[in-house]
């Protein structure tokens, strides 16, 4: 029986029915960062705490990755099955801009300022057939 394994520990709440990305927030200057860090990138303080980041935000910028990346890229694809994928930054209100893959992958479907929402789901499979779970954003309904 295959298992679901998160792509990295501590990136998002897991296991969870409604996962959220996990960031750290500086208690001195209020700056948030993703993923969680042990100190604040703005002021260097170590007084940071973990918090769940908003699941929705606005698309800040985007591009489309046109060619299959070399290592360290790891996916279920082959050069034959590779399809260009969207990448962008999503502005999570009151928190931080997070870089993410986007489920949309054409210029027609992407526009700066559009509303996006978090999706946590299977990204690829490992050698034992387990599902490696990652995060992405998609256009919000």
């Amino acid at each position: 029986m295959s298992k679901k394994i998160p792509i990295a520990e501590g990136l998002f709440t897991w296991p969870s029915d409604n996962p959220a990305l996990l960031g750290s927030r500086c208690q001195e200057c209020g700056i948030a960062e993703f993923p969680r860090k042990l100190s604040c990138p703005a002021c260097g303080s170590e007084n940071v705490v973990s918090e769940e980041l908003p699941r929705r935000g606005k698309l800040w910028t985007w591009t489309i990755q046109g060619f299959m990346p070399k290592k360290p890229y790891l996916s279920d694809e082959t050069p034959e099955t590779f399809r260009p994928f969207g990448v962008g930054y999503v502005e999570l209100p009151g928190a931080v801009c997070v870089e993410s893959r986007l489920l949309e992958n054409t210029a027609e479907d992407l526009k700066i300022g559009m509303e996006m929402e978090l999706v946590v789901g299977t990204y690829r499979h490992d050698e034992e057939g387990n599902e490696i779970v990652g995060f992405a954003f998609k256009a919000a309904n």
Partner: protein
Amino acid sequence: MDVAIVGIGIHPFGRTPGRSGLQQGAYAARQALKDAGVEWKDMQFGFGGSASAGSADALVNELGLTGLPFINVANGCATGGSSLISAYNAIKSGEYDIGMVVGFDKHERGAFNADPKQMGIGEWYGEKGLMITTQFFAMKIQRYMDMYGISRDTLAKVAQKAFMNGSMNPNAWRRDEIPLDEIANSFMVSDPLTKYMFCAPGEGGIALVVCRADKAKQYTDKPIYLKAAAFRSRRFGSFEVFAPSQALQQVDGPTVDAASAAFEMAGVGPKDIDVMQLQDTESGAEVMHMAENGFCEHGEQEALIQAGETRIGGKMPVNTDGGCLASGEPIGATGLRQVYETCLQLRGNAEARQVPNDPRLGYTHVYGAPGISAVTILQR
């Protein structure tokens, strides 16, 4: 004590199968020495760097074991700029009279491969296909175009101009002009940037002989004075490559900071500059760097580029040697290439691509990962 450049040397950029990166550096060094009318044993110090072609200080094995202090510099795309700044400070301190700055490289074909762990980022980031510099450049210009009304046609025109200038530069890698529609319709690497809008890792070498300004006329009748050399790294809130997240509030990037420091140091302003070499890793970078360095307001690039003002003969000639787009990017040499070209322009020796009306002040700018920038201002 002011600092002057009295000798310049170049090994042609592009691909030279029979010659190592180190040999290309030595080739450039010998040319620079000859240009200044000096010998290697006259050099009191050396600063140099290469990212993929071995230690720069191994040059002493090629040029002669004279006992000089040679310091290796490794600072990504700003390696050349950092070497020059180190030499500038060494001479300004009064410790040395004359020395050499050299940069060379030889990279494998294809995009640079980055390792997330080296940058302190989790492996998931690379696994998901986000550890790719071209995405960053595309996302930065994508937002910039949206904010300031820069068109896709303008991006293509930047590349077209680069290849046009490269066609007049015997040391450039790409020396054939490419039609505008071919640039615009080539493979979309990362929307909005196509294949011909990106530079590629390449090979080449540059060397400069620098000395105290009061001794410059001993070596040349056309010394070029280094009026400013400034280097800055990113502050919190600037949008940079390899960032899994970034601040909600943006601040100016290191280019803006390095540029204003350099203008202040030189006591001149952007309007005084006659010829400029700006980091053009891709077309969008050149557009944004025009404004970040202070040469125009954000958004004015659209009209300036459409009117041809950044061409040789225009109001503000940018990347007269074809830039990174036509020369490729050998990391250790790329910043020094800009200085080499500026020296040629200010000496009046740039031949087919000479900027008219005897340019007096030149400007160079490099930008690189993970958010560093070096600027120089040169005067004849």
